[in-house]
């Protein structure tokens, strides 16, 4: 473990978290993206993984580059795990467990996102790890927390997003709700997970003590619904989905433009903004919403956006996913760093959505190929000789 308060001197551009070592075991998005953000700011993040219990993002979740379904062509893994090292380790093997413990003993942070009880069964329970390393910070992230009657109920992010109440608030009133694309709640848990680790590091600077963090992805998600929960608690009204309507702004909506599936989003928040909008389209009738619809429907989206922005109307194009890569503002912020992956080839990563002026994020490596850093991790960090490593490999310790 890095000595407290005396992180080794680092070159200035090594990143805000240079010198921090993280060992990570998990799968899919909710755990591993925490490690990704830490790695983006310079932490050394070692992903321990096994072919025997492979991450679903390595094994089953498409897309795979050119349809080649193997661990190293998995797009999701390469995208979600950039900047990390991969060390392969079979934790069901007694030697595997010992190596994992030795590695965690050298780390500042251990992140895991398995079902509650899994890492303890693998011999990596929090209590004994903390006993060995009092300064260790352990983040356990799972669906509904480590305790409680639903702790062991299986689940995944997109369905947990529904349970928490997000889906209920999405769609037109009095119709079937629609999905929030992907495992929305996972990314909330990722943000709070990283915040929890960083806050625990801050406390460790003062006290020297580590921390065991029990993060329920469900509870993290509910933070984002605080106003809806308070509204129900205070009024007895259950907040309902309401299309694109807003209680203050009007118009406030998404308007069809000329061409297939082209839309703009716009809003007016007071009479002055409504006058600006009226003036921009020479609206005459009393129904401003209908005037806007009629006006946008005849014009190309980007012309609508340019006209409205020039007039001072709040407006944005509804960008498709492919368009995000060409958006000049996101490009200006370096949102999609280009890298070359050994198996996938050229690909894009996702930058953190905040930029630090003095210690910016760096993204030069996509998610590692399976076991890419075994020599470094088991040789240099744990000091195993080549012969020892070959012998362990023959025993299946690195499977």
């Amino acid at each position, binding site marked *: 473990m890095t000595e407290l308060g005396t992180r080794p001197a680092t070159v200035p551009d090594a990143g805000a978290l240079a010198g921090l070592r993280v060992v990570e075991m998990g799968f899919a998005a909710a755990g591993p993206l925490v490690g990704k953000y830490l790695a983006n700011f310079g932490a050394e993040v070692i992903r321990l993984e096994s072919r025997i219990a492979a991450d679903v993002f390595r094994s089953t979740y498409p897309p795979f580059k050119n349809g080649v379904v193997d661990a190293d062509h998995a797009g999701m893994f390469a*995208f979600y795990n950039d900047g990390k090292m991969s060390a392969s380790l079979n934790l069901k093997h007694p030697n595997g467990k010992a190596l994992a413990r030795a590695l965690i003993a050298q780390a500042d942070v251990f992140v895991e996102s398995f079902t509650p009880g899994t890492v303890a069964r693998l011999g990596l329970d929090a209590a004994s790890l903390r006993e060995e390393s009092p300064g260790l910070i352990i983040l356990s992230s799972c669906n509904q927390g480590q305790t409680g009657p639903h702790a062991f109920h299986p689940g995944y992010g997109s369905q947990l997003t529904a349970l928490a109440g997000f889906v209920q*608030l999405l769609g037109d009133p009095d119709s079937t709700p629609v999905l929030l694309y992907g495992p929305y709640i996972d990314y909330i848990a990722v943000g709070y997970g990283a915040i929890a680790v960083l806050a625990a590091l801050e406390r460790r600077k003062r006290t020297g003590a580590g921390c065991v963090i029990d993060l329920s992805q469900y509870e993290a998600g509910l933070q984002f619904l605080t106003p809806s929960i308070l509204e129900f608690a205070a009024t007895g009204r259950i907040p309902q989905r309401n299309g694109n309507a807003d209680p203050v702004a009007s118009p406030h909506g998404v308007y069809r433009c000329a061409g297939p599936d082209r839309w703009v989003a716009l809003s007016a928040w007071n009479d002055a903004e409504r006058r600006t909008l009226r003036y921009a389209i020479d609206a005459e009738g009393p129904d401003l919403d209908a005037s806007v619809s009629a006006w946008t429907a005849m014009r190309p989206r980007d012309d609508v956006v340019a006209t409205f922005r020039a007039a001072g109307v709040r407006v944005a194009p509804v960008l498709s996913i492919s368009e995000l890569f060409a958006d000049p503002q996101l490009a200006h912020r370096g949102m999609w760093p280009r890298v070359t992956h050994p198996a996938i080839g050229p690909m894009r990563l996702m930058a953190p959505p905040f930029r630090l002026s003095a210690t910016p994020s760096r993204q030069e490596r996509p998610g590692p190929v399976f076991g890419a850093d075994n020599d470094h991790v088991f040789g240099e960090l744990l000091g195993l000789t080549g012969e020892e490593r070959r012998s362990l490999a023959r025993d299946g310790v690195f499977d």
Partner: protein
Amino acid sequence: MVSPTLLGGCRVLDLADLSGAVCGRILADLGADVVKIEPPGGEADRLRPPYLADSWGGTENLERSIPWIAANVNKRGITLDLGSPEGRTLFERLAATARIIVESSPPGRFRALGLEDALAGAIVVSITPYGQDGPLADVQGSDLEVTAASGSLWLAGEVGRAPVRTTQPQSPYWSGMYGAMGALVALQAGPAQRVDVSAQAAMTTVHPPAPVWWDIAGEDHGRTGPFLLGRSVVGSRFRNLWACADGFVSFAIQGGPIGRHTGRMLTEWMAERGAVPPVLAAIDWSAFDNTTLTQTVVDALEAAIAPFLRTLTKSEFYAAVVKRKMLGYPVGDASDALTDPQLAARDFWRTISPVEGLPPLAFPGGFALFDGERPEVTRSAPRPGQHNAEIYGELGVGPADLARLHEAGTV
């Protein structure tokens, strides 16, 4: 608060409106001393509806905005006119006490006010629609526009109809959360610097599978209503939201060990309650692979499952899937969360007055357990200037000076 507090001793000045107030809220939950600074009389976002109901003595009123209260409990609050010379001097003195300053003003405003130097010693989290520089830096945007510009809106809604946003605005929460993450990364690094949060960029991070599909496979995903894409190698979509007797449930035909178990359990459950449709009875779940099913097959399976789910209430469904260890949840709402036995068992809720003097309300408690302790929600949302005497007093501004500053409209 977790003891010893995680961010104890860290002073935060929070000048952000509702587009960024969640950042300070998170830091306050973690034990930072967060001081909300508003213009005299209170900031405009205090009038953001919905309000606590009339029975609470609240109509449209600076102390009754639910979104404002949600984002500002656990903070102290003062007022200050940054437009006045004396106000700027007071701000400089306050800023000298802060490690972190959070703000959401249009890029360049602090420079225009001559306060750039006052910020120079702190980590300054700036939360704006599009970021501090770049072609859109000066463009205004509310939740709807930044969600549109992020691709998130594109992905939500029915095919052929207008994209929709989540009715409770989400971008303030994402921006605030990333602001807090950025502040804490910067705190690890040490030196004063700017954390430049873009709400557009924040909302771009909430749907990563879609960019991967475009980048790796050239597929541009769009709206799919209640269906889930991205689990099939032949492009099939799977229903994920189903009508039940008293609402909706989240359920899907899936593969993998747990998905196959779920399918097997479903047919057992259907058999107990009546009959298993032949199309389901014919499946060998031990070899079931959902990723290669054609849409025709998926549609037939879903047509066989839908009538069964329509007979169940949300609570019947949830009890059964928990008992059988199946994947699936009811589609919850605010009332379901407050009665959830899992949250009760983990002592999730915290009951405090939203504003001093009002009856208590249940708030979501801290977002994680730290060594078994949950960060507390202890402090009601401040009234405009509620802590002026206390905080200006710490700076050596006595009651007489404060009265004069109040008279002058500075606080």
